[in-house]
């Protein structure tokens, strides 16, 4: 599987829904924040410095990994005939991505991948995202278009 560096994905990520020139500068700021967070994460695995292309590649691959999990889980949910996925769909997706062939054989016991994740969550240091992710309401700004909600409450 050949993966391209999906920097465009991070640039298109628009949690505050900025568009145009202002949106592109906001996306660059967000990418910088995420890069700084990844740097903190990299230091936890003893990496002290990094080359910019390598960090960008790692970020892009992490994004693609999330995307692949979602797509595979949605496929399993569709096969089961349900609209919203459940935990078993994600477990099957993780098992499928974890195996070399990408094919899920049988689900007779808890996947080794999930057991590794449980072990990892118990051993790894908790490192939450420390940088602020303000929405329009908190900043006191107005969204550029009417269809863009001001705060998360308006989405529901």
């Amino acid at each position, binding site marked *: *599987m*050949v*993966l391209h*560096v999906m920097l465009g*994905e991070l640039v298109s*990520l628009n*949690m505050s829904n900025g568009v145009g020139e202002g949106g592109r500068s906001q996306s660059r700021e967000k990418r910088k924040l995420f890069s700084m*967070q990844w740097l903190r*994460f*990299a230091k*936890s*695995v*003893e*990496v*002290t*410095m*990094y*080359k910019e292309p*390598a*960090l960008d*590649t*790692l970020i892009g*691959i*992490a*994004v693609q*990994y*999330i*995307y*692949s*999990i*979602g*797509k595979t*889980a*949605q496929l399993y*949910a569709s096969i089961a005939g349900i609209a*919203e*996925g*459940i*935990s078993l*769909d*994600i*477990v099957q997706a*993780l098992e499928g991505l974890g195996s*070399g062939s990408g094919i899920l054989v049988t689900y*007779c*016991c*808890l996947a080794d*991948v*999930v057991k*590794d*994740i*449980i072990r*990892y*969550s118990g051993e*790894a240091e*908790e*490192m*939450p*995202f420390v940088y602020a*992710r303000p929405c329009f309401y908190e900043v006191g700004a107005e969204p550029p278009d009417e269809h863009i909600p001001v705060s998360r409450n308006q989405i529901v």
Partner: protein
Amino acid sequence: MNHGQQSGEAKQEDDAALTEFLASLMDYTPTIPDDLVEHYLAKSGFQCPDVRLIRLVAVATQKFVADVASDALHHCKARPAPVVKDKKQQKDKRLILTMEDLSKALCEYGVNVKHPEYFADSPSTGIDPATREE
């Protein structure tokens, strides 16, 4: 008959372990924000209002990146040390994440991010002028 009972019991234990782990995720904050994971899951078509599942994906991604970075670190350490010319270089031993180590680590996961080979115009292209004179 006994084998079937044992496999049934094992499955129940696994289901209980998964349920317990999902409940514990509410107390564990992954490095990747929930908003970001939810955004990309929604983009892929996977709709899920359950925060626990979003955090499960976040932890899985975090583990994946940690494994890749760790493998890249091993490749970096396994590389033979270059010839040290002065003492300052000898003291400054930093572990740098490079595309070379990262591509080797990702190869094991079936991901190809190698740069295409560089074809120079002449044999002396890219050589340091000082060494070229020698």
